[in-house]
């Protein structure tokens, strides 16, 4: 079963626990700017939105890479192979979502790699705003809620 990160901003409080977990997992320190997941705070609306790579099947980043440094691992994650990455940043331009970024400390690009199948951000999130679930059914929770709303006989919505 392929799993994917599923983000529900309705649950997010903007606490950055995901950001800190990601930075710790990949860099061994707590450094929000080096996290592969970011939380954007839209203060005027009171909304907090985590955002990271969704692991496109046909990944623009991978197609654009001139050195074939972006590989697909067993979880379907697009993973940077540091030995091949030359820091050209073409993938950061190719990605439509901005989720591949350059790290000046290493001279390589960084992006979400799903932590080898057990994402640290998911474990750290206190409100289930980020979950790692069956990629084929990510919409089912929303469908269930709307199904209940549209059914006059359902009271438990």
């Amino acid at each position: 079963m392929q799993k994917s990160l599923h983000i529900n901003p309705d649950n997010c409080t903007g606490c950055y626990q995901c950001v800190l977990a990601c930075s710790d997992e990949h860099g061994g320190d707590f450094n929000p700017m080096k996290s592969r997941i970011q939380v954007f705070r839209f203060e005027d609306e009171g909304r907090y939105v985590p955002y990271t790579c969704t692991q496109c099947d046909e990944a623009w980043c991978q197609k654009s890479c001139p050195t074939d440094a972006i590989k697909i691992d067993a979880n379907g994650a697009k993973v940077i192979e540091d030995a091949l990455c030359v820091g050209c940043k073409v993938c950061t331009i190719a990605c439509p979502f901005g989720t591949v970024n350059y790290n000046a400390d290493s001279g390589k690009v960084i992006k979400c790699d799903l932590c080898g199948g057990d994402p640290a951000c998911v474990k750290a999130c206190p409100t289930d705003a980020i979950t790692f679930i069956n990629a084929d059914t990510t919409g089912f929770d929303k469908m269930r809620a709307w199904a209940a709303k549209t059914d006059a006989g359902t009271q438990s919505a």
Partner: protein
Amino acid sequence: MAWAGKLLRVNLTEGTCVSEPLNMDWAHTYIGQRGLGTKYLMEEIDPMVDPLSPENKMIMATGPLTGTNASTAGRYSVITKGELTGAIACSNSGGFFGNELKNAGWDMIIFEGKSPKPVYLFIQDDDAQLIDASDFWGKSCWDTEEGLKAKHGDEFIRVASIGVSGEKGVKYACIINDMDRAAGRSGVGTVMGSKNLKAVALRGTLGVKVKDREAFATAVAAGKAVLAENPVTGQGLPTYGTQVLMNVINESGALPTHNHQDVQFDGAHDISGEAMHEPRKSDGKPNLVSNAACFACTIACQRVSTIDRTHYTVKDRPEYHKASGGLEYEAAWSLGAATGVNDLDALTFANFICNEHGIDPITFGATLAAAMEMYEEGIIDDKITGGVKLTWGNAEALTTMVEQTCLVEGFGVELGLGSKRLCEKYGHPELSMAVKGQEFPAYDGRGIQGIGLAYATSNRGACHLRGYTIASEILGIPEKTDPLESDGKAGLVKAFQDATAAFDSAGVCIFTTFAWTADDLTPQMDAACEGEWTTERLLEIGERIWNMERQFNLAAGLTAADDTLPKRLLKDAAKTGPAKGKVSELGKMLPEYYEARGWSAEGVPTAETLERFGLS
């Protein structure tokens, strides 16, 4: 590890920014933030100094856990001699500023002297510089924060700033960071203004490391689990914020109302956390938009609110239609119950204004309440108030006066003095509901005996956050004590004060202590920081800090005579509710407290006590 190991010394007179190694001996004896900052202040200033003189210093300090993923570990404190109180001041704030300072590689900043012209400090990791702030002087905290982000072209800059109130000497100006988080009490923003320092803007990208990553991860996960499973930190605070208390405290007969003339408020529900969830008539939306978290906080007690767009305060002012920091319990009480105003939108508006311009809503609301009592009693009149009717429950008086106070105009100039100076000016010092010049927060010392003692003995003037006995006396944490009983409260207050001083020095939020004891903090400290950290050591440091703060105050000229409560709490019995007929039994508790502390009958730490904590 955990500590960055260096501090930034900013001499505003000379315009210099110099890096210094952190005194690690002191770090191991005072931890960080409140404890370590106070130690530096003790060593570097004369406690008799005028708070607004260049000889006073102002320290912004993080704790060793600040910037890590320990729950709530984004705190910083501002330590100085307070303008409101003339006592040690230490105001703690959340948001994201504390982490940014730590991530830039600094444990603390010491500001000394006075700049010849308005400046702001801009830090990008190792690089620190003072920059001309004439474009920002006269601007609000909100405009300053947005303006600095725009000027530097970086939305991730974190800013702490003062408003016009801090520039012009309102006695209880705050320092506002991240738009609505505040180092709020005792006039720390007034001190900042006296130094011609408008703002501190930060960008930190260096990372924060701990001693033992694996042990730290285990300890942090355990701490987070305790918070999630606790009914207060896991349910009550996320759902209602601190406003979960409004109805609870009212029912306990300890909600100070009408400048402490009453202990219960008819309008309590209208301004409660529950009311913030109720849909309003105009648009069917509730006051509360969402609950939000400070950096790394898994509790998320912060309220994010909107004002009803048809409300008189904002119907012609669309700039206040956006969501912003909503009412916390203390502000809802001071702006509401203290003044008798039960209009939730008026209170929310007043709260926005306090955040926008940087004044402490607790002291503001309490000062307005004292002014209202003087107005109702005919001590002051329309000529003095500029025609504004300061009658109990008058929402328009509240919303007019909050803007006048923030902008230092009209009768707001006098409200900006705080209740002590204001009531003294009109010959009625007894109407100021304050200790050491700082106004009470939202709990009455007659209906909750322990908190009365905590107020009287708090080193920074009346404060609930120096020993939050409400946890025990009302909520039963860690065990229930009878709020109406004064027996045993001396020991309870001391225990809360000492533990709190340790938590305030570590970099985490005091609200964790609804669920955590020091035993929950210890493994996180021990995994993060060099050396061996035990609960005994943390609590010993907490007690050392308390005694050190006491030494500062005694050297600043305060005495046991300042450890008291207004006559109203000592003589006038509560009129209604469970505490009906009760006064504060401070006279009985205070000697017990001095004894428990190892202080003389005059409230002075004995030589033996000082020796025990290495404070001789």
